[in-house]
């Protein structure tokens, strides 16, 4: 047993479609240490969302194994939190009640008062103080995404899975949310997997970026983003960041089949 919290070992998976099996993942290896935050990038349709569904236990791979905290994943588990590009808030509930939804499913030692306090605390952390009693439709897209983030964290999950959570937001709102995300990461002790198609987002938020190859996906490239201080948006405009982005962009081109695998980075 290794000390990784999330361990994906030689996972292979194909969807059964009307036109025969569609191989999506092929020999995928991912390993995330406890407290780590990994960004996964790759061409559209390469199998990133499939990867999140495997980690969450929403489906089983044809071959290979998924391990969480030293336990083989066989089905859904309450130690996982998920957020998607679509915030999927329930329109008939207030923001507060939306955030508290997982606590109605997951067994928790918290009392009702503690649960509410926990939800309010998270909402304050992401800057939604004062919006607890609003309906989702009264909030902007960015605010809804913040609420969705709170809901994914309210039950104190070990693993946080984010599938392109900022993908539908405009550039400025997105950068606001990146900073919120950093703040949340400091306060909440989770191990994270972030799917994204924004390379700047991946190097800003993650401490490791994994590039997946085109479908069927395998791990094509891994980049570590070491850091020992609080990140700021200015970090994205350094020569170091420009070089990282260049390398990643080139890797994506390889994954898309638009550049030869042995070519030099531009």
């Amino acid at each position: 047993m290794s000390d990784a919290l999330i361990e994906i070992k030689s996972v292979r998976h194909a969807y059964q479609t009307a036109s025969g099996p569609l191989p999506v993942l092929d020999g995928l290896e991912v390993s995330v240490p406890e407290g780590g935050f990994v960004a996964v990038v790759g061409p559209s349709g390469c199998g990133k969302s499939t990867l999140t569904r495997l980690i969450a236990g929403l489906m089983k791979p044809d071959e290979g194994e998924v391990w969480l905290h030293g336990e083989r994943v066989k089905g859904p588990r309450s130690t996982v939190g998920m957020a998607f590009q679509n915030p999927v808030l329930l329109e008939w509930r207030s923001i507060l009640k939306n955030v508290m939804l997982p606590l109605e499913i997951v067994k928790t030692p918290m009392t009702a008062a503690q649960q509410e306090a926990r939800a309010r605390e998270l909402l304050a952390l992401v800057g939604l103080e004062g919006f607890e009693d609003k309906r989702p439709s009264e909030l902007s897209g960015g605010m809804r995404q913040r609420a969705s983030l709170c809901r994914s964290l309210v039950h104190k999950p070990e693993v946080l899975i984010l599938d392109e959570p900022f993908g539908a937001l405009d550039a400025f709102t997105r950068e606001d949310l990146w900073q919120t995300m950093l703040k949340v990461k400091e306060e909440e002790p989770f191990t994270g997997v972030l799917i994204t198609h924004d390379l700047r987002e991946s190097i800003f938020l993650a401490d490791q970026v994994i590039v997946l190859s085109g479908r069927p996906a395998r791990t094509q490239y891994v980049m570590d983003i070491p850091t020992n201080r609080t990140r700021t948006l200015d970090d994205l405009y350094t020569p170091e960041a420009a070089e990282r982005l260049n390398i990643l962009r080139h890797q994506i081109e390889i994954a898309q089949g638009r550049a030869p695998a042995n070519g030099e980075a531009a």
Partner: protein
Amino acid sequence: MLSKIAVPLAAMLVFLVLWEAIVWINDWPNYIMASPSDLPAAYSKFWNLFLIMGWQTLWRTVLGLILAIVFGVVLGMVMGFSRTMRDALYPLLVGFNAIPKATIVPIVALLFVGAHDFNTVLIAFMISFFPIAVSVSIGLSTLEPEYRDILRSLGASQSTIFWKIALPKTLPEFFGALKVAVTLAFIGTNLMEIVSPHGRGLGALFDSGKTNSDYPLMFAVLIALALLGIVLYYIVVWLERVFAGWAERQPT
């Protein structure tokens, strides 16, 4: 607030005045067209019949509608959750719905001669369950997978997902269909009441007005039916506001 009541009331008044004026200008005798001024006489002469018959029409419509809701929701759930069942049942349902119900009414009336209440409730039910079944099945089958996944990834059961997400999310469509269904059920009830011999309810009162060439009575029944229809419709609107009011756009 005032205009919310005053405007429809004024519209109603204008309608009555126009009606009266047209009858008066054309000098129609009341066996061609009764005028609003003939109605009070008809109501005061038969008020107890209106109450008894009105109640009969009301309870059969409502009972038929309740059966349609129960059956429609169950059918909608079956079709909403199972692709196979949807593929199997949908053409059958569409075919059944395409048959003009006016042709079913005499068949049912003959099939269960004498069972008048049963016939009427049956037609009200048959005519109104379709939109409910369709709306529930569409509401359930178009639920975005992410909605299921946020609960399923926590280990929630199918029934928890149904009660916490699928059902409430389908309510706006359900009430939209219920508004159509309540009107249909009402039509079904009246068709049967008018067609079956020795019928009951406002439809039968209408029929007896016809037999006796009592035109003011026939028009009085029409107005009473309209009123009952309006009341039923607005009860559904009120229920919708209570249970699915969240789906209404906030005026901003």
